[in-house]
């Protein structure tokens, strides 16, 4: 790229010179242009004056002062150049350690040398300005799309330090760097960190949460208790705009919620899928940075291969270009980024697609100029063309987002970067081509700069080829169809036509002329561009192959004449009616009626309380983190409302599950209790007001038996016990320390050192103070016994042993301790510690007085828990009512939900299942699964929805085929399969509980 001008060298005064001084004034007048001063203000026939790197004046009736070079832009447009808020322009790419597997020796400490944060992924001390250097190739690509400046961030770490605001000039780094610390940056990605913790999304959130608290504590102390350059920088950076890379609507909500905990409003970079949950995104009330990297069409020619493309992918392909329009319609403040585009040159075409799908041009322009400028608090320098602002603007042939508009020049800080020649003559028209007495018709079509030519004699088209170079033309053609050679002409534009020299086929030199005879007849083809606008498919909830266009409403439902399994002293009632009203079980009895109720015939059917799975890993975006004490990690931070296994479980009669952390650590993360409200947002799945629970784990998994090179403490069951004793001992110390502080007199307190908040300690303390309850993964009798002893030593009780496959060996001790048991029906022998598991375990514990449940730890088994419960009848002769309670009332009790769930009793939540058969039979299927009085699964609606989605799929396949046919790039289906989680899954690669 040629740098044409060289106004002033003010920024280079300190640099040595290697030439004579060449400081020019840099005074330019751009006249007769349509000037878009800002997205609200457009001046016709106006003038822009710039001086040096700044705008001097802009207006309609300006006279050009003396000493200004004038550039006539008649018919052309000037726009402020665009701003991209999400870029790593001029910064190195970040190498990530390959994989994140938990299979080698763990790295428990940060490897960053120096006085930096304890976690290697906290890089708040980093400043992009320190490393930024111009990248001419990348700058040129960005300028071609109309960008003049970007916010550049090194994409490394959960806390990424500061980003710099830089222009895209190629002059030198010193002038390109406009603002050194323009924003603080955060993400849900570890970047280059090799430290083992954290490995999961919930671990990332936990680290950010703890570090924010650490910074608050650290900042409140003078002198600091120790040096930490990262925390120091974190504190300093809090005054800057805070930008968070989230990359999906779900992560937007997570980032926003995290910010809310600390009164921080992040500017959040989304993923272009915000339309899928537009209401929730709107409610977050965050300004967004949105990409326009719309997916390519899928190649669906082969019906077998097309199976690999999910409905979700097809629908996203169709709806992604309408995302920005949805954001605009909902009044969400956003800027647009070119980040994520496969080719930089896709930027303007994709903007045009977004506009064709309903985004207004004014909002588009705002999102690329004033919005980012305001968000970064540099709207006094960039984003519009007002006096004193940087002379960053583009010159275009027409309205920026029109299909045919070209960008001629991109001016950055008063420097001119050419993209296309500014004054290209339009030669289109018909010409009378005269060569050596012969005449032909020459037809030149296309736009200036991209002309094409045809030559005819009479009605016959000749084989012709033409190239144009502004005012020069080269023409070759066969004078007759059968000619053995071509006439070759070279010429130049002259007046209204052409003149030149050339050679005939035999080599004879001749002169030629082409006189313009008129315009090209406008073809009617133009109209074809605006064919009737196609209807787009509907957004469904969740956005996948089993989503519904609308969520179910609370209904009044009267189930008549069913066999009702009450789980209460009434036992199993025959020919009984149950009325569900206002989300509750309203009445149970005979001959009930309710005028407004929808009546369901229950004859021959069974109505039960909905199944509750005490141990599940469905509906979460991650399951395990890896710190030995992961008490600060929360499953509730990463609920995944779109997980298909939620629906599959619903179809198996499950209404609620405890989403447990995995078993990678003695002290796992906090669990979440959710109801399977299919289609609702992540937050709405959570059971409000439920008690807090936490996962503990014992045995082979926590001592890392599958990893022979593990070095993480503990490696033995002896060490596991010490982890607990240590954690609870520390928690008591922690409490003491805070009590001492809180009890200080009002006089002393302000000057006293405030203790540091530690979220792991606080979690342990919640357990000791009976505000959080343990569900402990356990297998062999020694360790079961051990944890009960530890709990008794610290004066609390273990709430539940989960899996507990050798519970039958210590059932008497468990009953005495008062712990509940949630076990597998018949799993055994898949690892050493489950060798002596027996299918009679549940029955023995139950008979010994232990509150017992059957759980799944498995998305498949989780949808057949009624069958799993039946196994205790088969193997150990348990009564049917007791067996049934093991998957309903008993888990409700363990989860402290039995006041509202687990039985059919007036006043409890209407969380019930209607079965076609005896619910403990292998032949039973749920007909309806009802939660809060809303029918979330209905076997008939499921069937109808499957058909509707098949129709939608077929429509999209035809549309995709059309897109391929009209030349759009395509991608092949990848057959993406989301991983199913089990307890052991670190990054999901290991299996089985």
């Amino acid at each position, binding site marked *: 790229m040629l740098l044409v001008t060289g106004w002033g060298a003010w920024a280079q005064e300190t640099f040595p010179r290697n030439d004579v001084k060449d400081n020019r004034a840099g005074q330019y007048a751009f006249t007769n242009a349509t000037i878009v001063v800002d997205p609200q203000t457009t001046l016709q026939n106006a003038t822009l004056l710039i001086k040096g790197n700044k705008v001097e004046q802009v207006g309609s009736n300006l006279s050009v002062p003396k000493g200004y070079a004038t550039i006539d832009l008649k018919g052309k447009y000037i726009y402020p150049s665009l701003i991209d808020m999400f870029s790593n322009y001029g910064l190195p790419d970040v190498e990530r350690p390959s994989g994140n597997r938990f299979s080698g020796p763990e790295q428990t400490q940060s490897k960053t040398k120096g006085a930096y944060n304890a976690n290697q992924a906290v890089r708040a001390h980093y400043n992009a300005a320190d490393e930024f250097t111009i990248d001419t190739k990348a700058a040129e690509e960005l300028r071609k799309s109309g960008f003049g400046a970007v916010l550049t961030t090194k994409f490394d770490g959960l806390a990424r330090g500061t980003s710099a605001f830089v222009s895209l000039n190629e002059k030198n780094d010193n002038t390109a760097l406009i603002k050194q610390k323009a924003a603080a940056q955060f993400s849900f990605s570890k970047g280059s960190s090799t430290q083992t913790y954290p490995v999961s999304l919930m671990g990332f959130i936990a680290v950010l949460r703890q570090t924010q608290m650490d910074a608050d504590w650290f900042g409140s102390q003078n002198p600091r208790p120790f040096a930490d350059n990262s925390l120091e920088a974190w504190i300093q950076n809090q005054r800057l705009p805070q930008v968070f890379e989230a990359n999906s609507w779900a992560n937007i909500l997570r980032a926003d919620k995290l910010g809310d905990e600390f009164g921080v409003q992040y500017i959040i970079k989304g993923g272009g899928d915000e339309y899928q949950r537009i209401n929730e995104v709107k409610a977050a009330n965050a300004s967004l940075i949105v990409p326009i990297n719309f997916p390519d069409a899928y190649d669906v020619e082969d019906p077998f291969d097309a*199976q690999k493309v999910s409905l979700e992918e097809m629908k996203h392909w169709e709806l992604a270009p309408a995302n920005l329009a949805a954001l605009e319609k909902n009044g969400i403040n956003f800027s647009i980024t070119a980040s994520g585009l496969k080719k930089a040159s896709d930027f303007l075409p994709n903007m045009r697609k977004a506009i064709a799908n309903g985004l207004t041009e004014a909002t588009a322009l705002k999102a690329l100029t004033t919005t980012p400028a305001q968000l970064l608090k540099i709207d006094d320098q960039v984003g519009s063309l007002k006096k004193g602002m940087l002379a960053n603007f583009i010159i275009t042939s027409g309205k920026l987002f029109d299909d045919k508009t070209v960008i001629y020049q991109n001016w950055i800080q008063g420097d001119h970067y050419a993209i296309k020649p500014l004054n290209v003559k339009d030669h289109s028209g018909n010409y009378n081509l005269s060569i050596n007495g012969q005449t032909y018709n020459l037809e030149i079509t296309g736009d200036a700069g991209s002309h094409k030519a045809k030559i005819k004699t009479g009605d016959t088209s000749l084989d012709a080829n033409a190239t144009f170079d502004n005012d020069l033309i080269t023409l070759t053609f066969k004078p007759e169809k059968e000619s053995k050679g071509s006439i070759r002409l070279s010429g130049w534009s002259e007046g209204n036509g052409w003149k030149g020299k050339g050679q005939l086929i035999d080599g004879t030199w001749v002169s030629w002329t082409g006189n313009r005879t008129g315009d090209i007849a406008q073809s009617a083809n133009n109209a074809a561009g605006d064919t009737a606008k196609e209807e787009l498919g509907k957004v469904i909830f969740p956005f*996948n192959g089993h989503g519904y266009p609308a969520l179910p409403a609370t209904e009044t439902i009267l189930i008549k004449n069913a066999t009702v399994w009450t789980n209460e002293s009434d036992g199993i009632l025959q020919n009984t009616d149950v009325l569900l009203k206002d989300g509750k079980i309203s009445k149970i009895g005979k001959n009930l009626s309710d005028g407004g109720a929808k009546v369901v015939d229950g004859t021959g059917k069974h109505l039960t309380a909905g199944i509750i799975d005490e141990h599940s890993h469905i509906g979460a975006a991650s399951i395990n983190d890896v710190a030995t004490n992961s008490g600060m990690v929360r499953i509730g931070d990463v609920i995944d409302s779109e997980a298909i296994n939620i629906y*599959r479980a619903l179809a198996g009669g499950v209404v609620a599950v405890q989403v447990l952390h995995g078993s990678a650590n003695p002290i796992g993360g906090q669990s979440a209790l959710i109801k399977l409200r299919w289609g609702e947002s992540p937050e709405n799945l959570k059971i409000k007001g439920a008690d807090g629970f936490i996962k503990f784990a014992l045995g082979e998994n926590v001592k890392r038996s599958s990893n022979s090179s593990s070095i993480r403490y503990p490696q033995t069951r002896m060490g596991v016990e010490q982890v607990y004793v240590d954690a609870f001992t520390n928690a008591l110390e922690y409490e003491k320390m805070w009590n001492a502080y809180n009890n200080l007199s009002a006089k002393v307190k302000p000057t006293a050192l405030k203790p540091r908040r530690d979220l792991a300690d606080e979690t342990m303390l919640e357990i000791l103070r009976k505000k959080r309850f343990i569900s402990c993964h356990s297998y062999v009798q020694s360790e079961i016994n051990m944890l009960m002893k530890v709990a008794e030593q610290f004066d609390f009780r273990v709430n539940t042993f989960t899996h507990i496959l050798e519970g039958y060996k210590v059932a008497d001790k468990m009953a005495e301790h008062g712990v509940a048991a949630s076990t597998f029906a018949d799993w055994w022998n898949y690892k050493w510690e489950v060798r002596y598991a027996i299918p009679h375990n549940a029955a023995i514990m139950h008979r010994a007085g232990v509150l017992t449940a059957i759980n799944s730890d498995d998305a498949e*088994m989780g949808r057949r828990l009624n069958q799993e419960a039946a196994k205790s009848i*088969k193997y150990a002769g348990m009564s049917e009512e007791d067996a049934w309670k093991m998957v309903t009332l008993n888990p409700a009790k363990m989860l402290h939900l039995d006041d509202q769930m687990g039985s059919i009793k007036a006043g409890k939540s209407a969380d019930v299942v209607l079965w076609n058969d005896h619910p403990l039979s292998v032949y039973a299927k749920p007909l309806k699964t009802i939660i809060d009085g809303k029918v979330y699964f209905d076997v008939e609606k499921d069937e109808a929805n499957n058909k509707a989605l098949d129709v939608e799929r077929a429509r999209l396949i035809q549309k995709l085929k059309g897109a391929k046919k009209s030349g759009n790039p395509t991608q092949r289906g990848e057959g993406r*399969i989301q991983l199913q989680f089990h307890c052991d899954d670190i990054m999901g690669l290991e299996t089985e509980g």
Partner: protein
Amino acid sequence: MKKLNYILALVLFTGTYAMAQKPVPAPPQSKPIAITGGTAHIGNGQIIENALITFDKGKLTNVVDGSTAKIDLSGYEVINASGKHIYPGFILPNSQVGLEEVSSVRAMSDSNEEGDMNPNVRSVISYNADSEFPPTFRFNGVLLAETTPTGGTISGTSSLMEMEGWNWEDALHTEDIGVHMNWPAISKRQFSFATFSFTESPNKEYDNEVTNLEHFFMDAVAYGNQANKEVNLKMAAMQGLFDGTKTLFIHTNNPKEIVIAIRTAQKYGVKRITLIAAEGALMVADFLKENKIPVILPATHNLPPRTDDEVDLPYKLPHLLTQAGIMVSLSEDGSLHGSRNLGFFAGTAVAYGMGKEDALKTITSNTAKALGVDARVGTLETGKDATLFVSEGDALDYRTNVLSHAFIRGKNITLPGNQQELYERYSKKYGQK
């Protein structure tokens, strides 16, 4: 149900219980046995109420309607099965029983040999007759299982084992029934940490891999026609495929691969082919029907492979394939500990469309045919092995699959095992009994 519990208690706690951990293998049948008055599920779709079943020296001698048949039962040990149900022993195909034990312990794994083409490795000689699994299988009616090598392109040769025996020779039912082959994958799967999901991309080696495999078959056919030859163990192990004495078990679930694999096997004259596939088979059901290829399904207590699939697809797959005219068998490829639930996989198939007797076929006669052992097992028919069991009720449902007797080739086998012994021990400890 109360009554059933009572019966169950009787079954479990009568006398035989003071035994060691693993039940002692039973002696050969010493006198003729008659089972009277029960409902016989033949395994071929038929039911005989009030059946009279007799067997001697390990073979069935009569399976008839007891209300009309006139057979002198003097000298018989008579088992009154009135109100009960009699089934042919369930057959578990494509299992690693005896080759794998505790799956997480490497030292206990003997199913996957090094190398890509291993038709010569034979599962039977690795079969651990003292495995802890068979007692749990037969407790639920699974009396026969195919012990099957895994891995590579040609994994090895499988055998059919009885779930009882002092050693592998004793437990062997039919030696070397077939060769297992994993067809090369057109697409390879890879895991992405970024999206936490598996994706597929074309396998660039596919053409090479197929060519190698074709040459292996080509060479094996040629080897069979060579007069004077150097002995080649691999080539020799393939010969049974061409004379129909062994079955070729093709493992692939990709519809295109299914067609190509079967076409290729047919091209080289493989006489007996069985496909091991899931929903992929449904897409080429017509092709499979025309070519009369039986299908063994992996565990149907499984999740649908794709988000978009109907939630109950794996459950109804046996029914859908049967409706399409394909002979279907069920298996449990995922876990050995889950294999004792084979009967309940069939039960689930009933819940999702199949008739009960048709579902029974998928774990008895269909499987026997798919494995090429139907001359001896799979149905309750005169002349076949007396490998059968008596259940208190419907053996496809949990609450009623309660076995009172089981016979393997007439041997009256002991049903309770280690797990029942532990149940007994601890029930007593807590005074629950």
